[in-house]
């Protein structure tokens, strides 16, 4: 059983500084050679102030952005009682309100919204739904990210 007291609990603040090398590193890992992720001049020609982050970049916030503060998703799930080797990713969803560029200083708070027990053919699993609202240093909300992690027992 996961620790249900984490639902709605205030967790450490996520902080993440977007930089060009991390944007390129993600695009390279995915094998995505779209020049707007790699080349400032190409991004500017496309109307951006600088290179732009790929669509799945906000997921880095809850990993790298949580390591210093102990706000990393896996750390939290472990604290709740999950076995890391038994965690699967169920869903990931973003709402976008702007684009991410080098120099953006992101902060956000991850919240455990719900934990739902499901009895499957291979045993019980808990569906942990999370939500985080990410703001730039200006206070502007840039993205809301929701995830469902599946914890198997």
């Amino acid at each position, binding site marked *: 059983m996961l620790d249900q007291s984490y639902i709605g609990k205030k967790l450490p603040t996520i902080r993440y500084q977007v930089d060009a090398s991390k944007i390129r590193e993600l695009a390279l890992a*995915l094998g*995505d050679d*779209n020049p707007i992720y790699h080349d400032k001049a190409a991004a500017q020609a496309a109307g951006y102030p600088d290179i732009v982050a790929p669509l799945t970049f906000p997921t*880095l916030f809850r990993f790298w952005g949580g390591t210093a503060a102990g706000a*990393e998703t896996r750390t939290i799930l472990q604290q709740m009682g999950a076995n*890391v080797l038994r965690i699967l990713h169920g869903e*990931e969803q973003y709402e976008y309100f702007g*684009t991410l560029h080098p120099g953006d200083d992101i902060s956000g708070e991850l919240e455990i919204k719900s934990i739902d027990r499901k009895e499957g053919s291979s045993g019980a699993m808990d569906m942990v739904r999370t939500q985080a609202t990410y703001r730039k240093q200006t206070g502007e909300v840039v993205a809301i990210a929701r995830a469902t992690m599946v914890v198997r027992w």
Partner: protein
Amino acid sequence: MTTPTFDTINVGDALPSLTKAAITEVQLVRYSGASGDFNPIHTVHQAGVESGNNGVITHGMVIMGFVGQMIANWVRPDQVRSFGVRFTGISRPGDEITVSGKVLEKFEADGEQRVRCEVEAADQTGHRKVKGEFVAAL
């Protein structure tokens, strides 16, 4: 690359598909470093075995990243208003992923002309890995 326009897009239109090179173990190591997701089930063979798989499995976010690549090949990232997927199958090194999609709906919201599209990713045998939707302003 020509960005699609609202008037020339029709419900049911297929989006340009994207077929990726086979996933490699090195790619999973690179994605772990890039993303900060160091769950060993993606990089350490024995951890993959202990997790109930025969070896390492791909981060779901690698597959979603491929889907994101396909979307941003069609529209610009700043046109995308929402993007979500459900992970429906596990991928392993060697899988060759193809991302496809189609237009589900054309509508207006917040003073914008938008399209809602379905996307999915499947391997070379047709086994589906993710299914989802995105909304873009055209």
